[in-house]
């Protein structure tokens, strides 16, 4: 299994798109930090870039990479290897190369300018987001055989998580404005890894006061160590469940 991971990583780290992605993150984070004299403001601007770019690149790149590797996967399946091992090593290779790209591009500048708990939380959530969206991409590729459909589904999923979901939440909030929604909001935020990451970092930045009454509820919940552990496990299950389900599907898939 380690053998395939090693080769997948060497293949991806030399990929032009991944190099451009790393370069872009590096340029964006360095310029954001040097533009603002207050580095926690810089961190806030960087947060917005990361929450859009990292999921987008992770999900689209993983989907396209998996479709382009279809014949290579066939070749691997014809070798004396377990299907589980093939699928999981492809995932591990892809997820770790995207995480490496993120760590070099955004992790190093954050560590230079903001080497504190907030900075570390941001690096951790960035890595988790890279892995989560690679896992969702694996789900999309195992479900559809058609490349155009699969990439379309990946784009729609990204759109849903980064834009549509917020709209839906706002709609629900307005509709049920007369009822106490605080606990329901926490449950809703668990349904979207991007929202969850944003809340996690904003709460640590002490700008949650701007989030009003719900912000106070979140602070009450996520600020406590139980809340942190809860959100970490929710993010982990966003990795485990798609990977587990796609492995199950891949085991009985006709290639």
């Amino acid at each position, binding site marked *: 299994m380690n*053998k*395939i991971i090693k*080769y*997948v990583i*060497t*293949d*991806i780290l*030399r*990929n032009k798109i991944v190099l451009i992605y790393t370069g872009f993150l590096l340029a964006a984070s360095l310029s954001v930090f040097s533009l603002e004299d207050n580095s926690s403001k810089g961190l806030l601007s960087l947060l917005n870039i990361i929450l859009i770019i990292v999921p987008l690149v992770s999900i689209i790149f993983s989907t396209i990479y998996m479709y*382009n*590797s*279809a*014949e*290579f996967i*066939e*070749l*691997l*399946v*014809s*070798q*004396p*290897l*377990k*299907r589980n091992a093939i699928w999981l090593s492809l995932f591990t290779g892809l997820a770790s190369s995207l995480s490496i790209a993120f760590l070099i591009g955004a992790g190093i500048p954050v560590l230079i300018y903001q080497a504190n708990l907030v900075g570390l939380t941001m690096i951790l959530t960035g890595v988790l987001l890279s892995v989560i969206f690679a896992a969702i991409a694996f789900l999309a590729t195992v479900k559809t055989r058609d490349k155009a459909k699969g990439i379309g589904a990946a784009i729609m999923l990204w759109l849903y998580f980064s834009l549509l979901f917020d709209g839906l939440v706002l709609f629900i909030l307005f509709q049920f404005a007369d009822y106490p929604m605080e606990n329901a909001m926490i449950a809703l935020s668990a349904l979207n890894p991007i929202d969850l990451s944003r809340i996690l970092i904003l709460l640590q930045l002490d700008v949650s006061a701007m989030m009003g009454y719900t912000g106070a509820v979140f602070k009450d919940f996520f600020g406590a160590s139980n809340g942190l552990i809860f959100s970490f496990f929710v993010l982990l299950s966003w990795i485990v469940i798609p990977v587990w389900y796609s492995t199950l599907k891949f085991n*009985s898939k*006709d*290639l």
Partner: protein
Amino acid sequence: MIQLKNISKHFGKLRALDSVTTICEKSECIALIGPNGCGKTTLIKTILGMVVPDSGAITFQGNNIINHWQYRDQIGYMPQMGRYPDNMTIGQVLGMMKDIRGKSEGLDEDLIKAFSVQNLLNKRMGTLSGGTIQKVSAALAFLFNPSVLILDEPTAGLDPVASELFKEKILAERDKGKLVLITSHILSDLDDLVTRIIYMQEGKLIFHKSIEELRQDTGEERLVKSIAQVMISNYE
């Protein structure tokens, strides 16, 4: 060596394989022939475990292959269209396969030498032509001295010289007692290679005969003409 019993497979409404039953023994070179979409590639893929049949059983050297993967150690497979990770070099692909199989000795590097692949070891897979990729696939299929060789349209992209070298290699391996399964539409390439013919149509196995029987039945000396006769009589 490989035994298929009532293998059936549906893709939606399409019957890709319809209770196929046959036995393939060693020291034979068997050609799978039939019109496009008759289920040749699906049959190969079920033997390799890439396609899981709806019903039926496949045994490889007496063992059922369902949910097993170790038996593929004995098979060398050359796909119809090989594609490898674009940024890996030929040398890395060969190295990876050796790693996966866990073998670095007793390798059969005849084809690597014959196709002068060793001069291209630093070339990236993404920059290679279709024919060169075919050469790499062929070299990989033979590299580990497998007892069964499964070749899907092997000569389609090869130049005439490479194609001849490749056919000589197949003959040599067959005479060493290996089982070779070939699908091809270029019947003239198969003429002096194959010893048996499996003819398929619409997922059904129409016949499995030795080449002498086929010659007697059709009264034609050349494979091209005898198969043409069979195809026309079955064509609707």
